[in-house]
């Protein structure tokens, strides 16, 4: 042992005291002198031409400092990858909730009054809401010139990919491996099923908020609930037509992200209001705006066709995924819905495969990213499909999976060569903990689901570490902590490497002027990538401290060792941390700063599995489902912080439970009708099942101290596991989400009639 260990210890969030006392500052809490309230008028039509906009009455409202429409803005479009959404609609609106006019006023009341006096004349156009109808030859065209929309070069992932291959299709990705036709020809049985998944909202409790201020020197300060400040800066600078260094994105606490807080949302508009009014402006969305015009999860229709041998070996698999991306494709950071292609084959050994994933424009709210984007939808389909096939073959669902999942030495359906594959072990661990084969009371069923996702390995991460004159270690990161506990994990990495008590490590989120470049949170990359960068900075610091000690001892640094926070020379002389710091301060060596930067070495060669078993009880009379118990088994690396690690598992699982059981962003004629949190049903404390977590541990991860990722796993299998359990309980197979009492009641009555 070399001093107190930090890795593997449960530690409460380092920013905890600020968060439990109300001192943590979120974007909506930012107040600047002279600040105005920005508000937006949104379209009430799903598809219409803007004939005219009259702002004159709005501009006369006392306290109003700016009223702007699309015509007042440069002709730019914004987006996380594809830039197809205007800051304010120009000639056309494409969904109910699209921003048309914005005002900045001294009070919210004045802003609202001004908006009520804006006169917009629309000419309604035919609209289309369903992605399959939108691909019909006579469907209304939603984007007339999509080829003009800009985007970075398409990276070589997701198979062959194209933007706008045909009318109303935003993007298409086709992945092929082996020979599908030949595979299907050799199959003895072929099964085909179609599944429907509705849109669901991230449900963070903090609606999007932002603030913008323009300094006398032209510096643009932005506060934004965004998990990737440096990427936001790049996108904002492009939208404003200024160099990146003119924009500074400032750190704020983020009130929940789950993938939804990666876009600019209102922040570009907020800047244009600040420019027009010459005052700082804040914009805070209300929750109705969040639900009706945020960036919810893609809904879609997923058709699967799988060929197997009679003994239950999968030979060939075809997936066609048609996702509704809403009116714009701007809200995802890639050209395709990554998790849809990746999880369409599941963690199975399949020689012949073809996956086509489409994102189709409709006149509905634009869809975005939400915790393992594309995966829960696709996994619901794939894992239900696997159970249906097992059932047809008369096989136990667990046995069928164990026969087909990847084992060491296999290449995945995506062509990845992973080491330390623990898919079967994880499945077995979940089944054992759930007592898979134990007797069940009537109307009780068990269902299983599995999902695989590798730790994120992309972008660049940076860290700056300073030793101050008090002997404290100050870590400056450019990453925002979206609530996952990443600041705490980074502090633990520093504490471990420098054998320091956790309390001596202070984590600060730097702004984009002062922090090292950081790609930010997303894709389960932060512990891995920012953790690695932090470890490099901490190792460099250790080396520098040893050099200092060598100077003090008047020997070479090779002759000095650091052990248990003491510096020990080979001749036996010793110096403790405090004395070294005091000596260094005297000799003008403090503060001492070292930085680290980390670029991924490529796709990681290890991955993570999660297997879950749901146990449900169905009331045959009402169709009501009660999830009695969930087992979540995880293939994990070194667990850096057991408390926050478990927090990710529990929070994700309940999010998956919500998607399975109660959440449905209902749309009628393009309008979201579940427009507040009374109608859009997030799980409450009363809804949570008994939970058993099993960790299948190994020290094999690519992250610091062999850690893996955990953030985007437990939320994925619940819909499939619960649907499979419902079938096991009462024989009702639901192929659409959520799993409501009404659907089960109807199916049970229909079954009774048939019998």
């Amino acid at each position: 042992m070399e001093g107190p260990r930090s890795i593997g210890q449960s530690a409460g969030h380092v920013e905890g005291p600020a968060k439990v006392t109300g001192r943590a500052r979120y974007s909506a809490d930012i107040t600047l002198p002279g600040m105005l309230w920005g508000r937006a008028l949104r379209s009430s039509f799903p598809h219409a031409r803007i004939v005219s906009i009259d702002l004159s009455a709005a501009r006369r409202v006392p306290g109003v400092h700016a009223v702007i429409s699309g015509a007042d803005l440069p002709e730019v479009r914004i987006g996380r990858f594809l830039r197809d959404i205007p800051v304010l609609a120009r000639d056309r609106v494409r969904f109910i909730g699209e921003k048309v006019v914005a005002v900045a006023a001294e009070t919210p009341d004045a802003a609202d009054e001004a908006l009520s006096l804006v006169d917009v004349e629309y000419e309604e156009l035919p609209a289309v809401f369903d992605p399959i109808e939108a691909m019909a030859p006579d469907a209304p065209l939603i984007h007339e010139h999509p080829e003009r929309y800009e985007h970075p070069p398409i990276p070589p992932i997701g198979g062959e990919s194209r933007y706008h291959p045909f009318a109303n299709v935003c993007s298409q990705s086709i992945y092929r491996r082996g020979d599908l036709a030949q595979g299907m020809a050799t199959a003895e049985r072929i099964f085909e099923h179609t599944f429907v998944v509705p849109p669901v909202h991230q449900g963070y409790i903090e609606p999007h908020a932002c603030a913008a201020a323009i300094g006398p020197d032209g510096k643009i300060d932005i506060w934004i609930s965004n998990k990737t400040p440096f990427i936001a800066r790049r996108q904002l600078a492009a939208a404003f037509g200024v160099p990146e260094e003119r924009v500074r994105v400032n750190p704020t606490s983020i009130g929940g992200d789950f993938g939804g807080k990666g876009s600019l949302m209102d922040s570009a508009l907020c800047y244009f209001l600040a420019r027009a009014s010459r005052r700082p402006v804040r914009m805070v969305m209300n929750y109705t705006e969040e639900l009706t015009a945020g960036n919810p999860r893609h809904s879609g229709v997923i058709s699967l066709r799988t060929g197997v041998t009679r003994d239950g070996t999968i030979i060939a698999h075809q997936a066609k995924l048609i996702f509704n991306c809403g009116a714009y494709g701007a809200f995802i950071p890639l050209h395709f819905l990554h998790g849809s292609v990746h999880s369409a084959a599941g963690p199975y050994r399949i020689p012949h495969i073809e996956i086509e994933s489409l994102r189709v424009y409709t006149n509905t709210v634009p869809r975005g990213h939400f915790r393992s984007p594309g995966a829960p939808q696709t996994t619901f389909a794939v894992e239900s499909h696997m159970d249906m096939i097992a059932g047809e073959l008369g096989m136990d669902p667990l046995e069928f999976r164990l026969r087909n999942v990847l084992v060491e030495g296999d290449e995945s359906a995506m062509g990845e060569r992973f080491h330390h594959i623990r898919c079967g072990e994880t499945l077995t661990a979940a089944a054992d903990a759930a007592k898979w084969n134990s007797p069940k009371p009537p109307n009780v069923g068990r269902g299983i689901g599995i999902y695989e996702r590798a730790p994120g390995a992309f972008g660049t991460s940076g860290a700056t570490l300073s030793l101050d004159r008090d002997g404290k270690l100050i870590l400056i990161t450019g990453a925002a902590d979206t609530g996952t506990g990443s600041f705490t994990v980074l502090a633990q990495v520093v504490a471990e490497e420098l054998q320091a008590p956790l309390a001596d490590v202070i984590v600060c989120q730097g702004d984009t002027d002062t922090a090292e470049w950081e790609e930010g949170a997303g894709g389960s990359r932060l512990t891995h990538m920012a953790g690695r960068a932090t470890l490099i900075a901490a190792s460099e610091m250790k080396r520098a401290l040893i050099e200092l000690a060598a100077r003090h001892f008047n020997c070479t640094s090779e002759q000095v060792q650091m052990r248990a926070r003491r510096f020990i020379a080979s001749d036996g002389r010793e110096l403790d941390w405090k004395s070294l710091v005091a000596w260094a301060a005297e000799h003008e060596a403090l503060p001492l700063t070292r930085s680290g930067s980390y670029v991924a070495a490529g796709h990681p060669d290890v991955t993570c599995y999660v297997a879950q078993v749901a146990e449900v009880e169905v009331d045959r009379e009402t169709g009501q489902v009660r999830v009695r118990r969930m087992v979540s088994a995880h293939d994990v690396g070194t667990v850096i912080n057991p408390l926050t690690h478990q927090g990710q598992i529990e929070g994700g699982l309940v999010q998956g439970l919500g998607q399975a059981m109660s959440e449905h962003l209902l749309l009628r004629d393009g309008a979201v009708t579940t427009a507040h949190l009374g109608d859009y049903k997030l799980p409450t404390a009363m809804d949570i099942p008994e939970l058993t977590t099993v960790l299948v541990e190994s020290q094999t991860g690519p992250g610091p101290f062999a850690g893996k990722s955990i953030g985007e796993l437990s939320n994925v299998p619940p819909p499939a596991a619960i649907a499979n359990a419902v079938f096991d309980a009462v024989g009702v197979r639901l192929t659409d989400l959520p799993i409501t009492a009404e659907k089960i009641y109807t199916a049970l009555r229909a079954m009774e009639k048939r019998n």
Partner: protein
Amino acid sequence: MKNIQVRVNGHPVAREIPDHRLLVDFLRYDLGLTGTKEGCSVGVCGACTVLLNGQPVSSCLALAVMADGGEVTTIEGLAEGDRLHPLQQAFIDYGGFQCGVCTPGQIMASKALLDANPHPTPAQIKEWMMGNLCRCTGYYKIIEAIQAAAAEKTEP
């Protein structure tokens, strides 16, 4: 416009405000007490929970004038200097929050619970806290934190 006098976290406050000013806006934007958060704005999520004369209320649904002559306690009023309230400490130690935006409301609601029932069962905690939504934790650790605070345990 109306003149109101309220004791907020023990301090007397007098302000002239519009009759329709919501309590949450009064606290956040008139007094600068931004620890109280607004989530759903319709009294469902509980993020804006404060204590009005000791009772938990959704400050997004309450008018500031309703607090006239009364006493309001917000999250800023719980700690004594640097000494955290046992609930605040337990929420940190037991992982009862992640992003922290619902936390002021969770802590104020659980304070009202423990004031009314110092030793609630897990079932009573769930029932009381169902009016406070949390999207990060899945509630397990919130329940543990409240139980620990009730038992006056500070370390897990």
